[in-house]
């Protein structure tokens, strides 16, 4: 058995490996190289050293502003998404009628693409703000909370499903033993349920953090950075940099490299801290 797996490993893995190489590894490496070059088309490049990295921060402060805006957004949305998703998961694992229908309904927004969701919410928010003769582009705060609401709407259902699966996997004897010992609901939640679903919390925090940082299409469709770049997040800023000035394609690329390193660092740090809280099986 072992032997034949080895023998056919190449046969089964090779197509996927080739695809991975062509569509991920090569562009990734080439993208890194491009961040040190000036170019218009990616095949005709001139090496310029660290100039692009310097320009990413010195020409305007939109990139740093985008970083802090994204950070604030990620923190708020990670907290709200996980709390709401966990609360829904707790509610929908109790024996009340219609739980399956509610699970489906909460999950459904996740099936719609980001651009479409962005447009839908733009219409809704502008529709409400129209009573005050305003739009979402009037104030950066509207854009910020609009994005938070949109992100919750889209992600709560997905995270809820992960939490539901984890809660249903908690051995009932543990909960019964706690009942016999006279523990109330809060004690059970704190001492049994949360420690038992810690692996899922790790996954959900990881997913929501990286989603929050990588957000692009929702940002583009909902506010497009208005007013005046104030609601522009990192990914959108990178795209806008690419076409903003002649010779700035490399600067956009440099920002993309910084962005990748940053997101990887934050995600790994977050994984490391929550992993330590997981209980060993």
């Amino acid at each position, binding site marked *: 058995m072992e032997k034949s797996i080895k023998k056919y490993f190449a*046969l089964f893995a090779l197509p996927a490996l080739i695809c991975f190489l062509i569509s991920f590894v090569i562009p990734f490496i080439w993208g890194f190289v491009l961040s040190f070059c000036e170019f*218009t*088309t990616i095949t005709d490049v001139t090496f310029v050293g660290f100039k692009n990295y310097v320009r990413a921060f010195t020409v305007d402060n939109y990139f740093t502003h985008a970083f802090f805006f994204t950070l604030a957004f990620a923190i708020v949305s990670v907290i709200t998404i996980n709390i709401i998703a966990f609360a829904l998961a707790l509610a929908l694992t109790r024996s009340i009628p219609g739980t399956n229908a509610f699970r489906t309904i909460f999950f459904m927004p996740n099936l719609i693409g980001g651009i479409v969701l962005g447009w839908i919410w733009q219409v809704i928010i502008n529709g409400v703000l129209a009573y005050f003769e*305003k739009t*979402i*582009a*009037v104030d950066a705060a509207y854009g910020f909370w609009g994005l938070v609401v949109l992100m919750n709407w889209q992600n709560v259902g997905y995270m809820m499903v992960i939490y539901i699966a984890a809660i249903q996997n908690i051995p009932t004897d543990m909960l019964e033993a706690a009942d016999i010992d006279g523990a109330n609901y809060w004690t059970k939640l704190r001492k049994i349920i949360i420690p038992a679903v810690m692996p899922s919390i790790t996954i959900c925090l990881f997913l929501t953090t990286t989603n929050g940082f990588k957000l692009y299409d929702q940002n583009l469709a909902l506010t497009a950075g208005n007013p005046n770049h104030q609601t522009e997040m990192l990914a959108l800023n990178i795209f806008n940099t690419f*076409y*903003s000035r002649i010779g700035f394609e490399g600067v956009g690329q440099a920002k993309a490299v910084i962005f990748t390193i940053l997101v990887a660092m934050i995600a790994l740090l977050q994984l490391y801290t929550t992993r330590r809280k997981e209980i060993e099986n």
Partner: protein
Amino acid sequence: MKKTLSIILIIALALSSAFAGGASESNANEVYFLNFKPEIADVYTDIVAPAFEEETGLSLRVVTAASNQYQTTLRSEMAKSNPPVIFQVNGPVGVQAFTNDVAPLEDTGFYALLADKSMAIEQNGHVVGIPYAVEGYGIIYNDAIMRKYFALPDKAVDISSADEIRNFATLKAVVEDMTKHLDELGIKGVFASTSMASGTDWRWQTHLFNMPLWKEFGDILTTTEASTFEFTYNENYKALWDLYLDNSTTAKGMVSAKTDADSMAEFALGQCAMVQNGNWGAAQILGQAGNVVASEDIKFLPLYMGFEGEESQGLCVGTENYLSINIHASDEAKKNADTFLTWLFSSETGKKIVKENLMFITPFNSFTEEELPEDPLAKEVNRWMNMDGVTSVPWAFQGIPSEQWKQDFGGALLQYINGSMDWNAVVEIARNSWSVEAEIAGR
């Protein structure tokens, strides 16, 4: 046996994935044109390409970039092994991004057709971009509504037709008095929405802004080389800008949700009397479902903003549409590209298509007076260009140092509308951003 079989299978898989994309053969007899104008994409594929193939035996492949995506599409197409032979650049600043890709055009038949050789883009002593369509813009007005206004018994102005509006003071008086009579005129506002939705503020940060820019620098070349910009005529810009905003169909707080297409629809549906746009908007007005504006009522007015002697000021006439030929294409492909362009703008069939289907006002000597397009706005542009005592305003905005400047200025304009920035701050942003961007552009 099994081993050989698995090796063969692996090789087969590897090979099939390598060729899965299928290499497209480059064809020397094919002219590859990357078209900029999505509104006429069908004309190229359905009418131009078959006619060209029938008359010359060469084939034409037209790829059209989606609206606002030309730069993105062009960059990726240029990187391919079979790049476009003919592509569009939007002016002297736009050509700088493709400095290494544009071929010299002075020996082409296409360049020989150009009536005013000074209109072409030159770079290091070579002609590298040739304009193919001249466009004009100003304030489009609906003469039927204007006639209705001038027939009112209690109108506050002395003049009796829109033709007599020849300066900003008159325009302001008429517009403000019209706002007092909205119900009698049956409109929601004098001007269509000042569209400020993202990506649709080009009518203000580029087109309207052309006026103070031209007044300060005088011509395109000086603008293209300017390292600083004072915005001397900012009060004039503000005067017309405020007039648009205060007499609009849409409340100030709501304009950031409006697009230029919304504005054109409002005009076509008779909800407003005026809209700032160019002759390319004719199709948008006449093609709008429920359009109530008769084609003979669509007229142009220059962008008056209170300059000295503006009675002699015409429409803003110029072009952003230059064609360049890819220097990396084979000699034969370049020759075929020239054959195509010369054919389109000088053969009988080609000229007929340009007039009736593409509807360009061309800058070529091969076109006679009768061969100009017949849509109302193109005719109006032509009328203003040839009016006695009136001089057209050139498109000085081509010298704006970068796209970023336009974004910065547009963003500031939006904040001014929202009341979160005063006018002096807007002017300051326009000045500072100009020096920063000009320096990056190497001026």
